[in-house]
Structure formats: structure tokens, C-alpha cells
């Protein structure tokens, strides 16, 4: 009995954590949802903001652009990370740790410096653009870094190390003994991946895909530095709260809610696919 009481006293230590989570995680989200339904004066509730977004081609385009760029960059990033982390598991332990460390290092390289680095490399007078021009190769003809295509390339860059960081531990779960056992029972390499390997890594793969997608949907500084005013959800949101032409925090909140809803439905879709996959198996 005394022990129980002691344990309950321990909960006091959780108070700072609970306060921080309330103040900086839960309350902000509630505030956004609340203000997305408020009339701009803040007196009564309305659906005006949502109606405006869904009837405005400009805002709809920003949603479409964000989703398309995020989807493409996460799929490509995931594929490269998948191949890469599979290869990393094949290396000797010492090299493996170094490669992982290097890859993790670059995962912090994003935002304005990253955009700038790509301008140096493949911008209008970038190193590779100049090399290609000098050699007379039409490698970059039709490619413009300061466009949707360029954004996708830069987004893929920051998706790869994050993908490797998240996928590598999953590959580590596949024990070598399983492959041996499967081969001994007559399975081919392809068979092993089809019936054992893939089902084991699938949950982690979909989870990683979700995080990469969220990462791209939420990216802001990179796109802003590279293209300036490319029509993306995050750029619309930030120009609505701190821009100099149109200030409308309630509209920004509604945009943020829509962005959040897209991420949530994406996660739910992932879970559903996972459940379905399990049933089939």
C-alpha cells in the first residue's frame, strides 16, 4: 500500500513535461483549429476561410503543387534510401558505421544553405551547367533549377539521408540466419524477399514513407530560398501570417488545418494498406 502511494508521488516529476507539452504542442494545435473557423474579427464562427480556399484556384494550386512535389520526392528518396541502406547492410561493420555517420551528417543540411549549394552546382551558371555547356552536352537543356523540377531534385536530396537514417535499422532486423534457412528449404533469393523480407520491412517502409512525405509537405525554407514565390502550401501559410501584401492569420490557420488533415489521411491510408497486406498474407 505504501509503495503505491510513493509511486503516485512520483507523478509530480512529470508536471514540467506535461506543462511543456500542453503549452507548446497541444494548445497551439487547438488554437489553429479554433482560429481557422473564426471570422477575421474573431467574434463568431464561420466556414468562410475553407470556402475561400476551395473556391480559389491559386490556393488549390498550392495544395496540388505541395502534394505532387512531396509525393514524387518521397517516392524517389525512399527508393534510393532503400537501395542504399540495403547496400550498407552488406558492408563490413567498420565501414558501415562510417557510411552511416556521413549520411546522418548530411541529413542536417537543409533550408537556405542547401538551396544555395544547388545554385552553385546546377544553377544557371552552376559548375555542372558550365561543364555541360563547355563540352557541348545538352544535359541540362530544358532543366531549370528555379522551377518545380528543380525543387523536386533538391527535395530528393534531403529525403535520402533521412530515409537511410530511418530505413537502415529496419533492414538490420532481417537476420542472416533467415536467408540461410529459407535457402536451405529451397527458396530462391527473390522468393525470400517476396515472402519473408518484404513483409518484414513493409511496416517500416510505409512508416518511413509517411515521415518523408510529411517532411516534404512541411519544408519551407528550402523552397523559399530557391524559387522565392513558388506556389506551395507552406509558402502560402507563411506569407499569410508574416507577408507584406495579404495578412490573414485565420486563413493561414485554415490552410494549416488542411495541411495537417492531408498528413493525417496519408498516415491512415498507410495503416489501411498495411492491414490489407496483413490480411492477404
Amino acid at each position: 500500500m505504501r509503495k503505491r502511494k510513493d509511486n503516485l508521488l512520483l507523478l509530480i516529476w512529470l508536471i514540467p513535461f506535461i506543462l511543456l507539452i500542453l503549452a507548446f504542442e497541444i494548445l497551439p494545435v487547438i488554437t489553429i483549429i479554433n482560429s481557422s473557423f473564426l471570422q477575421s474579427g474573431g467574434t463568431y464562427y464561420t466556414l468562410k476561410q475553407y470556402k475561400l480556399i476551395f473556391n480559389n484556384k491559386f490556393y488549390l494550386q498550392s495544395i496540388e503543387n505541395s502534394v505532387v512535389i512531396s509525393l514524387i520526392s518521397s517516392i524517389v528518396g525512399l527508393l534510393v534510401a532503400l537501395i542504399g541502406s540495403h547496400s550498407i547492410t552488406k558492408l563490413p561493420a567498420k565501414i558501415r558505421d562510417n557510411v552511416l555517420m556521413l549520411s546522418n551528417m548530411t541529413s542536417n543540411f537543409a533550408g537556405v544553405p542547401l538551396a544555395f549549394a544547388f545554385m552553385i552546382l546546377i544553377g544557371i551558371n552552376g559548375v555542372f551547367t558550365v561543364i555541360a555547356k563547355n563540352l557541348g552536352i545538352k544535359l541540362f537543356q530544358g532543366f531549370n533549377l528555379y522551377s518545380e523540377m528543380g525543387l523536386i531534385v533538391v527535395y530528393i536530396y534531403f529525403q535520402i539521408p533521412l530515409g537511410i537514417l530511418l530505413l537502415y535499422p529496419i533492414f538490420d532486423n532481417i537476420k542472416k540466419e533467415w536467408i540461410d534457412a529459407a535457402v536451405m528449404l529451397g527458396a530462391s533469393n527473390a522468393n525470400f524477399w517476396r515472402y519473408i523480407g518484404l513483409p518484414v520491412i513493409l511496416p517500416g517502409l510505409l512508416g518511413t514513407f509517411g515521415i518523408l512525405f510529411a517532411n516534404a509537405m512541411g519544408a519551407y525554407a528550402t523552397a523559399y530560398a530557391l524559387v522565392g514565390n513558388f506556389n506551395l502550401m507552406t509558402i502560402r501559410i507563411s506569407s499569410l501570417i508574416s507577408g507584406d501584401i495579404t495578412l490573414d492569420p485565420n486563413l493561414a490557420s485554415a490552410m494549416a488545418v488542411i495541411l495537417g488533415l492531408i498528413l493525417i489521411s496519408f498516415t491512415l491510408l498507410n495503416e489501411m494498406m498495411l492491414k490489407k497486406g496483413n490480411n492477404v498474407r
Partner: protein
Amino acid sequence: MKKNNYIHYVIIVFILIFLFLPLLATFLYSIATQWDTTVLPKGFTFAWYIKLFSDMRFLKALERSLIVSSLTLIISLLVLIPTIFIITVYFPKLEKVLKTFTIIPFAIPGVISAVGLIKLYSNGPLPIAGTIWILLGAYFIVSLPFLYQSIYNGLKGMNANILIDAANLLGANGVKAFFHVILPNMKKGIIVSALLSFSILFGM
């Protein structure tokens, strides 16, 4: 078998080149005298760095970044280590709840939470928008998923429950066991996660 391995090396070298080219380019640009239409810079100089480090505003910004990141890290560790320890050892039923709250930051991009934070704290009972405190709070949430995962892994990896039981049997109370058994065992994990979060925060 041997031949297969070459493919893996080639793949990894390609990925690493792709990942490091932008870093290398930025560095070269930072020591170039002039580099606009040529393949390589025309000459090299450290003048930019000397200029940067003699600029008071840059030094102030650097100092502030360092202070905010390390302060966040210290507060986060002070709050999170006891919280995660108490929940995993004494209230395992709450683990799921804790985990949910630590994953949420992944689903809320910075721009979204910024909208809420500005609205919430620009006026009202706690007007901390524009001060260092709002940044500390926001950074705490940003580093939460990373710190949680590594502290949690550390606790699970050393079988904290069993260690606490053993310490209790030997006559140490919970607090003593925490400071003399659990904390020293967690040191390595904490340092690694602290470095990771520090670099994330510093880069923001």
C-alpha cells in the same frame, strides 16, 4: 558472392558523392575569390571568413544560436530523463500515451505550429512571442522525438526495471538507484542523442 559486393560499394559511393557534392560546393564557394562563369574558382582566399568573424552581428547571431540550442538541450534532458524513466519503470501503462505525444511533432510541420504559437503567445496571459522563451518551447517540441527515442532505447537496453529491483533489494531507494545505477549507464546514449539534437537545433 565477392562480385556482388562491388555493386554495393559502387551504390554507396554514388550516394555519398551526391550527398557531399553540395557541401563541397558550398565550402569551395566560401573560399573562392571569384567564381561565377568558370568551372572552378579563379582563386582562393580566407578573406570571407575573416570578414565574417570580425562582423559583430554575425558573432552575436552565432552566440545566440549556441545559447538557444544548448539551453533547449539542457532543459529537454532535465525534463525528459526523469519523465521517461518514471513512466517506463513505474507506469508502463502510460508508455503508449507518452509515445503518441512524442510522435505528434513529426506530423506538425514547423510552419503549422508557428501559426499557433504566434497566435497563442503574441498577447494574452503569457506574451512571450518574440522572446527567447517561445523559441525554447518550440525547440523542445522539435527535439522531442529524437531525444525520446534514444533515452527510451537506453533504458530498455539496460533492463532498467531489473536494475531498479536489484538496487532496491540491496537497500538503495529509487532516487539513489536512479543516480547511481541508471544515470551512469545512460551516459553514452544521452551524449549521442544530445549531439544529434544539438546539430538539428543549431541548423534551424
